């Protein structure tokens, strides 16, 4: 494998031992350029402070905190059921993972066994969420490159899936459907049929995307060989999910540490080898097809009837004995996890959300940015698929 890493930074200032990079802007050679937070090219409300020399970026610093609401603090103030509505807000485009991880962590510490059907429903919702998240991603990366039309289509398809979400869960964005103890309801009548229509439409549009984006000469020029992450960096920088799979590391928690009903489903872990932007998009693109197949499988295989809620204690004064646990799952961006510590009271002692964006958009991005072209920063960020709200929570 050849990795074309632009690591020759000898002509630029070097960071000091404390990691601080002193750049003398007075020389006129360098220019500070801020991308964000009001910036359509980056993946949400965060900003990157770039130091550029001509078209070349010398250094980049990620600035986050624009979306900080102090979730981990707020959760400590809420009872176990009251945490449930706020967890989904941690990550806006793929909220269901928060619901699942939190619910599973509470269930584990409280010793609640979830009914079979609820697990299927949860898997279904997570896959629908993954589909949506990838749709956002495809729209984002094409938008970042100026190929607006793909963004239009993908948002449309995502919107169709949101309709299914709405029908199933009663809300478009924040579904609040996966309660500790199970899920809130059964599938509506005729859901599978309507879902099939959406999947067919999605496949139709994805075929167009294949033609317009992946077989596009300009697109290839813009993405191939750019933003390469050396697989050696995966472990030190905590790279997980599609970003790692694009570098040939076939790790997927759905396979490696199956949760919910993933071990009853057939799917393949998609990998690539070049670890550049193109491969990262491609891996996700192929993963969408896996998600579509998984949704079909789940709807086909899931039990037709049964309870969806386990018996839970009176939620108004629910106390959980002292303990700690960590629940993880493979979100569309990588390993997503909830670390829950309880102290025997009616409130969580501490909840820590481990989002993949946290490692991808901070240390890793700052490592990748120097040496890139100013035009490539946006798509590099998008290709890492980060959602700022889960960084700062």
């Amino acid at each position, binding site marked *: 494998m050849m990795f074309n890493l632009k690591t020759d930074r000898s002509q630029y200032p070097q960071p000091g031992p404390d990691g601080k990079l002193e750049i003398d802007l007075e020389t006129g050679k360098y*220019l*500070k*350029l801020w991308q964000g937070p*009001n*910036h*359509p*090219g980056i993946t949400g409300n965060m900003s990157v402070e770039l130091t*550029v020399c001509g*078209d070349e970026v010398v250094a980049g610093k990620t600035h986050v905190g624009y979306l900080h609401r102090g979730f981990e603090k707020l959760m400590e103030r809420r009872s176990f059921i009251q945490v449930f509505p706020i967890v989904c807000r941690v990550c806006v485009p793929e909220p269901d993972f928060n619901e699942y991880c939190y619910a599973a962590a509470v269930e584990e510490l409280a010793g609640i066994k979830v009914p079979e059907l609820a697990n299927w429903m949860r898997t279904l919702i997570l896959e629908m969420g993954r589909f949506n998240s990838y749709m956002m991603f495809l729209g984002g990366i*094409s*938008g*970042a*490159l*100026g*190929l*607006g*039309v793909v963004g*239009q*289509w993908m948002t*449309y398809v995502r919107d169709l899936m949101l309709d299914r979400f709405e029908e199933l869960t009663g809300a478009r964005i924040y579904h609040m459907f996966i309660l500790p103890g199970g899920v809130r309801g059964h599938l509506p009548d005729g859901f599978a049929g309507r879902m099939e229509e959406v999947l067919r439409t999605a496949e139709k549009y994805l075929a167009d995307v294949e033609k*317009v*984006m992946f077989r*596009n000469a*300009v*697109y290839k*020029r*813009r993405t191939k060989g750019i933003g390469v992450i050396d697989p050696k960096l995966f472990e030190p920088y905590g790279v997980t999910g599609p970003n790692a799979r694009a570098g040939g590391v076939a790790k997927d928690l759905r396979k490696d540490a199956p949760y919910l009903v993933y071990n009853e489903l057939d799917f393949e872990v998609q990998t690539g080898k070049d670890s550049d932007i193109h491969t990262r998009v491609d891996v996700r693109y192929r993963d969408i097809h896996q998600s579509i197949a998984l949704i079909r499988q789940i709807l086909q295989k899931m039990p037709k009837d049964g309870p969806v809620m386990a018996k839970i204690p009176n939620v108004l004064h629910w106390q959980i004995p002292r303990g700690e646990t960590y629940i993880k799952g493979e979100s569309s961006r990588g390993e997503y996890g909830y670390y829950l510590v309880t102290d025997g009271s009616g409130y969580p002692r501490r909840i820590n959300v481990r989002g993949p964006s946290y490692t991808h958009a901070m240390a890793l991005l700052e490592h990748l940015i120097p040496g890139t*072209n*100013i*035009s*490539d*920063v*946006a798509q590099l960020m998008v290709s890492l698929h980060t959602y700022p709200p889960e960084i700062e929570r």
Partner: protein
Amino acid sequence: MSFEWIQIAWALLTLFIVINYGLIMTAVIQKIGARVGGRYGIPVWQNYIDLIKNFSLRSKIHHGVMFYLGPVFRLTGGIGLLLFVPTIYGSVMHQNFSYSGDLILALYFVFFGTLGMALGAGESGHPHAAIGVSRGLSQVTMAELPLALAVYSMTLQYGTLNITDIVAAQQGSIFNWTLFTNPLATTAAMIAFVGTMMRSPFDVVLAPQEIPIGPPTEYHSAYLALMQTNRVLYPIAKTVIFMNLFFGGATNWFEFAIKIFALYMVSVVVGVVHPRFRVEQSIGFFLKWGLPVGVLSILVV
């Protein structure tokens, strides 16, 4: 040709027609682009409302004289370009101020607007504007290179620098168009045309995803309205040159509308379905494809 005062009135009428045509046509083209995305897009009269809105804003701030002059220069570039090329061939009314050798003047106006813009935006003090300008200028300059070569090749072919004469030479049959008489030069010019129309894959200047909005970042209110006017006028004026030089010009307003629209659509057809190049990539593209074709066309002639 002699100059008559009435020509000024006729030229203003031309200007009026072209601006209105441009406002509606760009809206229609936006709608066409929206259709590809699967939606309806803006109403056709939206551009008028936007213009009125921008003129009606109550506050303006400015950053120095050049900041004022930027949009003015740019509009001047657009108007100048239009006024010094014959809009409708054979029409006394819409002949405008076409003199012998006006091709050089026209090419000068093409640059004039861009330059004015660059100066104005530089004055705004916004770092994004400055970077946008430097990146935009280098790319546009590169894109104009094949055009210059094509024009050179064509002047060699027709032996004149007068646009009216060039148009006259193409009358009679569709096969008299430069498109057919000098396809290489046309190709080179069209590459430049697509490159300068500010659309993907060569639209770095306005690329919001890379640098928020580029040079016009700071422009607002009436300044922006001026620039919007220019944004409908200038590409049409440029297209008029291309139409005159390579596609036989237009002998009436109907032909004008059709040809301009068709030519304009060329950049749209390409732009809608492509992401954008990086600056050095597009420069490389022009060097690799535009330049050889241009040179070849000269050699062939």
